[in-house]
């Protein structure tokens, strides 16, 4: 589950925006536009209100939360909002950080968050450095040709292969690449083979942080990554929310390549305490919170990712 809304984004504290009476100094605040089940306003109403703010040219970070129409989330797309952003791009000249879908499980299940087509965003906002998208249903990134984009993160409970391909095809100075791959019951249909070109080192020459999170095949990712040239040039590895077991941890250790990493995060994992200690000895900084135990039923052992439904 996704339990908590953003407190900070784009280097600024996040505050809900509802026009007058809410923080309007966007050099100090990142506004979040969100709907409420007990309210009639939809995101377009709120965005219209935002676009009329005189302080808009200073806005660098923007968050969109729960989107509803007439109090319902079903079949409600953020596409009108994405289209409005593109249409009014000149009013947001300083936009550097965009989060589409700061929606927690109490508001809507991640697998039910309907997304949109981001193809128009890239050309409209050439100064965009960071984008985070939550929800994979109907998500399309289009072709990313961008001069500034350093961080790309897609958070889903089940990510489609097409989106993974679009993300990996990004022509941008990516430093932080993050995917929440998810559960096949919720639309995940990738495997470690999808990351062959990435691991071979052909993509993202400036990559610093690789975050392949929430994966059903974390062990395979660990094994393939440490056998690849990419491990030699990243600094941070995030395999959290996934299904890392002793086998994957052993592969990481055996590679002898962990010493040059600044940090590994495996939180929400299935690694035994002994192996966590062993991994910790080989890693400058290991984060291994939230250990899990697999479920046994029908004579089989099941490893679940942290975020699916």
């Amino acid at each position, binding site marked *: *589950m996704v*339990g*908590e*809304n953003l*407190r900070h984004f784009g280097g600024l504290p996040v505050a*809900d925006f509802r026009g007058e009476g809410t923080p309007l100094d966007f050099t100090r605040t990142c506004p979040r536009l*969100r709907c*409420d*089940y*007990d309210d009639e306003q939809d995101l377009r109403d709120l965005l219209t209100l935002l676009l009329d703010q005189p302080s808009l040219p200073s806005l660098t970070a923007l968050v969109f*939360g*729960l989107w509803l129409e*007439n*109090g*319902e*989330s*079903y*079949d409600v797309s953020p596409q009108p909002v994405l289209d409005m952003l593109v249409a009014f791009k000149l009013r947001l000249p300083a936009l550097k950080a965009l989060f589409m879908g700061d929606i*927690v*499980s*109490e*508001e*809507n*299940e991640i697998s*039910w968050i309907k997304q949109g087509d981001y193809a128009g965003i890239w050309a409209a906002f050439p100064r965009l450095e960071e984008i985070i998208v939550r929800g994979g249903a109907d998500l399309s990134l289009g072709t990313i040709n961008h001069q500034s984009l350093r961080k790309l993160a897609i958070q889903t409970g089940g990510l489609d292969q097409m989106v993974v391909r679009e993300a990996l095809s990004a022509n941008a100075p990516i430093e932080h690449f993050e995917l929440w791959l998810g559960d096949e019951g919720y639309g995940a249909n990738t495997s470690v083979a999808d990351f062959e070109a990435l691991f071979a080192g052909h993509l993202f020459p400036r990559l610093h942080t690789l975050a392949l999170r929430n994966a059903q095949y974390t062990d395979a990712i660990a094994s393939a990554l440490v056998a690849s040239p990419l491990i030699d040039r990243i600094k941070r590895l995030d395999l959290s929310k996934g299904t890392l077991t002793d086998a994957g941890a052993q592969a990481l250790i055996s590679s002898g390549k962990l010493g040059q990493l600044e940090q590994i995060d495996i939180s929400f994992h299935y690694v035994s305490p002994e192996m966590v200690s062993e991994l910790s000895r080989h890693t400058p900084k290991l984060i291994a919170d939230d250990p899990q135990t697999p479920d046994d039923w029908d004579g089989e052992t099941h490893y679940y990712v942290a975020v699916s*439904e």
Partner: protein
Amino acid sequence: MKAELASHAGRPALVIVGGGSGHRAQSLTAACLAEFGHRPRTLTWRDVLRDPHHLDTALEGADWLRFETPDQDADELAALHEAGADEAVRLGIHTMPADSKALIASGAIGSPSQMNLGLHKLVAMACALADTKGVTTSTRPEDVALAFDKRHAQAQFRAAGLPVPRSLEGVTDFASLETAMDQARINRVFVKLRHGAAAAGMVALARHGQNWRSATTAEIGADGVLRATRRVRTLNTRAEAERLINTLGPLGLHAEAWIPKIGIQGRAADVRLVMIGGDVASVTVRASLHPMTNLHLGGERLPLDALTAVIGDAMWDAICETARKVARLFPHSDNLGIDIAISADARRHYVLEANLFGDFVKDAGSDASHLHALAMRHIRHKIAARCMDRHAA
């Protein structure tokens, strides 16, 4: 003041009905000893049902009668079911067989409405007896009737101008639930047993087109019996939701909008305020990975600071003020547990439930003894005030 008490009636005597056993009974006894210098006279609900003469004897020369929750004690729950049987039959409510103890001991939810009728009947009887002897009681039957009926309580809170989730009317089974959701345009609901306690039989349902997801503590056993579990399960189909709601339906339902709770430290959080004498005595912030935050279902306690850091002091003050207003609707009750949800955007808060056995927080640990000490001090002050009134008169 102590001297005056002593001169009036010796050391004030406390009678407790339903004090339970184990840790809670020990904690209550210790608190009573510390405050009054002697043990309380304790009776079970079963004693009261079997032979009211027990209570009559215990109340002789007593000052205060305190009622306690049966919690999960199968004997006590069975006694309360038994006490409510006649009235349940008269009202046409789903009733439990006469020998329900074994079923209840196996975790069966039983018939909370029937049990509540029994509780109401025994509290009314005990209060009537106490009145004849000038013994003050920790609550009154009318407060019992209001607090433990979620449908009635929510309506009263709304009428008093207190913030509550939107209620769905006329929900008796899955079909009527769907109709009510359509009419109210609400796709996320909590369905609760009308007289349920401790999240027993509670279901959080979300609908998304043809997809349904339900989180629940209720389980239908192979024997067809509804049981409350400590494990929150997720049901992923409409058929499972339908079967569960239709099985819960005959027990009496209350349905309301599911307020998206505020997230703190990666968990959904709400707050339980324990009111003693109408004011906030203790606060428990509960946070969970499940829609139900109850501590016995895996909820974690967070420090109050973690909540106020997110919602701000003004919102916290407003929550406390709401809790005091709720307490005023229960003027005859010593203590009250009030559950309040804060919306994910921290703009609104909502009264979810009030519980007359509010200073009993499941799995509260050391908090329980602290609350029992506060409760005993409150009783002593009330007795002292009463003595002074009588002297003045």
